[in-house]
């Protein structure tokens, strides 16, 4: 027993939170929908672990970057629907720009000579 073995987790700390916030920016969703959404948007390249999703959601809740309300899902089930807050939006912007700078840096190192516009 114990935690599942195939646990690639996030690429780097904060990536899952960023994806959650981005998904929620598009539309509020509950946990299960979030998993589905991220999976689809990444063309099934990213498999979100529930084991990481819920702790991440709780962290975001605590930081007041998202808020949650009980509602009814498309399958007519009582679910907790998460919504991004203004603070969450701001946080997402900051994270995104720093992520992009980092990505740019990594790309430069990996592909020397090729500039990225």
């Amino acid at each position, binding site marked *: *027993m*114990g*935690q*599942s073995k195939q646990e690639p987790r996030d690429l780097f700390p904060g990536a899952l939170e960023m994806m959650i916030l981005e998904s929620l920016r598009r539309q509020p969703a*509950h*946990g*299960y929908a979030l998993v589905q959404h991220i999976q689809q948007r990444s063309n099934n390249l990213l498999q979100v*672990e*529930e*084991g990481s999703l*819920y*702790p991440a*959601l*709780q*962290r975001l*809740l*605590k930081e*007041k970057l998202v808020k*949650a309300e*009980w509602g009814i*899902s498309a*399958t007519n*089930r*009582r*679910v*907790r629907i998460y919504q991004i807050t203004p603070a969450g939006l701001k946080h997402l912007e900051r994270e995104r720009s720093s992520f992009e700078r980092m990505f740019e840096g990594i790309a430069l190192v990996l592909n020397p000579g090729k500039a990225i516009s």
Partner: protein
Amino acid sequence: MSWFRRIFLRGDLYGDLSEEMRAHLEEKTEQFMREGMNRDEAEHAARRAFGNTTLIEERSREPWQWPRIESIWADLKYGLRQMRKSPGFMITAVLTLALGIGANTGIFTLMHALLLKGLPVPEPDRLVRIALDIAAPNGVVSDQPLNVFLLESIERHAKSLSGAFGWSPYDFVLKEDTGLHIYSGAVVSGNAFQVLGIVPAAGRLLTPADDQRGGGPDGWAAVISHRFWQQHYHADPSIVGRHLTLTDHSVTIVGVAPQGFEGVFVAMHPDFYLPLEYEPVMRGAGSLLRQPGNLWLSVWARLRPGVARETASAEMTSLYRTAMEETLPPAVRHIAVVERSRFALRPGGRGWSDLRAQYARPLFLLQILVGVVLVVCCVNLAGLCLARAAARESEYAIRGALGAARLRLMQQLLVESLLLAVFGGALAVLFAWGIDRYLLQFLANREAAAALSVRPDLAALLITGGCAVFSALMFGMAPGWLASHVSIEPALRRSNQSIAARKDSLVQRIFIPVQIALTFALVVVAVMLSATVSHLRATHLGFRVNNVFLIPANFDKEPQKGLDLVHLYRRLVQRIEQMPGVDSASVAENTPLRGVGSTAIFTRASSAKPEIGFANRYWVNDVGPGYFATLGTQLLAGRDFSGQDADANTCIVNRSAANVLFSGGNAIGESLRRSDRDMNSGQSTTRDCQVIGIVEDAKYTSLREPAPPTVYLPVGVNTGRLSSLYFVIHATNLAEAKAAWPKTLHELAPGSPETEPIDFAEQFDDAIARERLLSVLSGFFAALALLLSSIGIYGLMASYVTRRTSEIGIRMALGATRARILTLVMRQVAALLLLGSVAGALLAVFAAHSIKAFLFDVNPGSLAFFAASVSILIAAGFAAAILPAARAVLIDPTLALRSE
């Protein structure tokens, strides 16, 4: 999220989370069903994909928590629940700890009060005490006080001191509405409080202006203690300026000493402080103030800032000669005793006390003993907890399986240990208080015992806490390690019994023999110390102690002096002897076992050239007629003092003195010459006396030393402290005789204050107080360790028998006799005892040799004591195993085999 919500609505948060995750799982299940699985398959698949829900839930909760604290809190709650579930274990553990920690706190508190506590003055490190170290020819150095002349000489010349003062304890008689009462106090130099640097609680403290002949601006200025101020005046500040009659003279209260200030002598509590110049007013002709040859004044000083104690000490050594030249009469400046002495500078920041010299080493020994007891307690508990941990192994395996980390499991067990230690520690404070009350009864100085503050203070509580944490770590570590190293799978699969078997052998191999070894050493120490006390009690004293009581006379205020006073004593003795309950009575200047006595130089009057020196010093005591009969000391030859004035120039010697002085020849009728030299005037005098009797040897100041050669002189005008002799009374009925005393006193000496009778038997007990203290406490601690070891052995053997019930059943079914079964069990115990004793033997030998100084007539290498100790251990060990052994013997083979 507000703090409030985080803490108090956490239940809601967690509820939401659980529900949310359940919904998630269901959705996932439905999706799998849509993909063509049946419900069961889908549910399993969803669960597998989701992972460990409990763990995820716990991790999701974490953002809301202070994880470390909360996990400890959870452990605490769980630990408390565990304790409630096994009250027997909890009570045993807490009591064990309470005794172990309490003993440590108790001894430490006393040690702190007596040895370590600093005086409540600013910069106590700069305070020093200056003493005169007088070396006897045999090398023994005694620490003596100084006098005013020496103090003044030091003040004149010393450059390393910023101030010096004299201090002498003095008992004052205060006239109150209810009569005359004695209060302790001190006469001090006018600058004493300034040098100490303390601030008054009300009014002012003494100044040099108060310390003048005839008194200062306020007449005779008196400072009272804070305690006296509260108890007698309800801390009323307006009492400053009030007059009191203190030892027959009027004094003015000028101020109140600060709270907690008890002078510079540890374990005394002075209520009155008066200037030194008040001493001759009270003592009159007997005053010591202007005597250059008497040593009576304790001298204290403050080092100049930045001056090292070594520097000041060197300066004192170099000042000694000058001080002697300046203060002593020429005739005695160069006598041997002066040449052999020197000034000694000692740290004064912690005050000074005779008790310190007497009790420092015994307390240190006790501290070590209780330390060992605490270790035994911990080892015992470690064994106990280990057994419990073994029993709870499946619990740990399950927790491990559910994802608990190793450290987390270890933490749980340490928290449980700490919890026990906290309870134990709390109880220990109470126990320590009890121990100290009991301990103080042993202090020979009863007033000091009452004055020593042994309330548990911060230092003591810190020690208690330290002990608790130390023991929790000690006994929690092993089971903690064990729990964290449980291998999950086999533990879950195997039955409990087989695991327990493995753990038991570990306990057996280490913990029980360690306890036995430590206990062995404690028992040896206790046996030797108790033998010391019984040897001391059995020594031939040369006098009786039972049914005898002493009354110190206080006849300073009687109009009679000299020979008239001698006659007053005589009349009082005759009167008290007529009283009911009294068998016989007498008086003496010194009584045995008070720890003090006088010496004088005696030579044969007939010897051509008397050699005066240390070798001719004899103990001397002035006694009245009937003294020997009253104390039961046998008269071997000649006669007792007759109580006639004609006996003034006679003396009685004891057997040792007769042997030394007259080389075993006939002493009766011979003359002795007593030579005295007055250190104040430098005059030498001699006086002859005729030996009229020989008495048996009797101990004098010390029980440990052989009875010293002693010369007894008749009480008379030459007796040194004629106004304060001791009445010695042998009673047929103690209570009646004691009741008769005040009547006799009021009848014949109405102006004198009543003094309390002292039981001689009690004084004897006081004389061996140190030894009794050590014997009783070491006995108690050894018994405690023995009890703990027995519990350990009992527990181990009980589980051994339980585990082997079926094996024993099989053996019996195959024809083993009950005797063989008994042997089987007892062999285990014997192995444990053997291992422990062998390991403990070295420790015990070491312990026995390190207490050599405390022993009397006991050879620390004597095998008998070790044999006795081993027998005690063996008896205790087998006694502890009797119940389990009986259970083993009474096993019914058919029942035992059926249960398998």
